[in-house]
């Protein structure tokens, strides 16, 4: 037999320490998890949605890009398609929201033949410059909103809508 035999006293104290340790861990772990939970939480609203549009295809001419996501209204789920007007300004990619700041119609690029280089709202003739700035004298009172833009594997991703940052 080996020399260092475990005495009854030692055996009991080891067992008690072990079991006590497990119990303490069982109490402390959830506490710790709750304490650091806010750090681990992903930020709702900061979600970027990947579109089917390649970054390389974006030119200086604004094009319509579809943005699909699921919207939950109470128990009713529906897939919603939003649209963004996407173009390149220098090296920067710009995605403007198509919602007119007047009463919420959809604006169109260049559909007014007298102003081919402006966004045009067919409801009440509102016009915006390419950077989204509202043309004075037309109904809209503010510039078009802007999407946050990100690149993901060569494809364009659009984030939450924020106020226009291009218009100074």
């Amino acid at each position: 037999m080996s020399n260092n035999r475990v005495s009854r006293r030692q055996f009991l104290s080891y067992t008690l320490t072990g079991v006590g340790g497990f119990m303490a861990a069982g109490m402390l772990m959830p506490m710790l998890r709750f304490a650091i939970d806010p750090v681990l939480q992903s930020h709702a609203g900061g979600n970027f949605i990947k579109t089917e549009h390649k970054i390389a295809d974006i030119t200086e001419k604004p094009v319509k890009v579809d943005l699909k996501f699921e919207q939950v209204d109470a128990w009713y789920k529906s897939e919603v398609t939003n649209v963004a007007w996407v173009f390149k300004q220098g090296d920067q990619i710009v995605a403007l929201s198509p919602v007119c700041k007047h009463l919420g119609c959809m604006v169109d690029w260049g559909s007014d033949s007298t102003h081919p280089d402006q966004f045009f709202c067919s409801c009440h003739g509102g016009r915006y410059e390419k950077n989204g700035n509202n043309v004075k004298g037309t109904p809209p009172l503010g510039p078009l909103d802007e999407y946050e833009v990100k690149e993901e594997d060569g494809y364009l991703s659009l984030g939450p809508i924020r106020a226009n940052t291009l218009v100074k």
Partner: protein
Amino acid sequence: MYFNASDVTSFMAQKEFIDTAIVPLVSVDLTPEKMKQSGTEADFLLSLTSFIEQQFKGRLLLMPPFSSSATLKNEDLPKQLEAQLHNAGFKHVFFITCDHFWTNIGEEVNVIWLPAIPLESMDRGVKNSILEDQLRQVIPMLSTKWAQI
């Protein structure tokens, strides 16, 4: 604008800009052979009118659909409704339907008739492009009326 409390509030505040009412006329046919077709029509009409609403939100108010079954159809309904909508301050009133019954009163009120396209079997991309095509049919009718004023 939809016919709900928040949109009607903005309509009340912006009456001079929102001068058009769109009324979907839905026919409910309950005979076994036509019931499915009737469902297709209702689905198509409501999808299309919400799409129109999305595009022209600031110019028009989309009324809740007026539905009628075979025996309840009455040519007076659109005429009376139009008169009441004019009284409420709408300059233009459009009725949209997939049912030929209403086309013969087209001379007195604006009726836009469109063929019902079965949307149920399509995936979303196709559905959207079909609705966009249909919208392109409707826009000229709206814009000619809007240009007349």
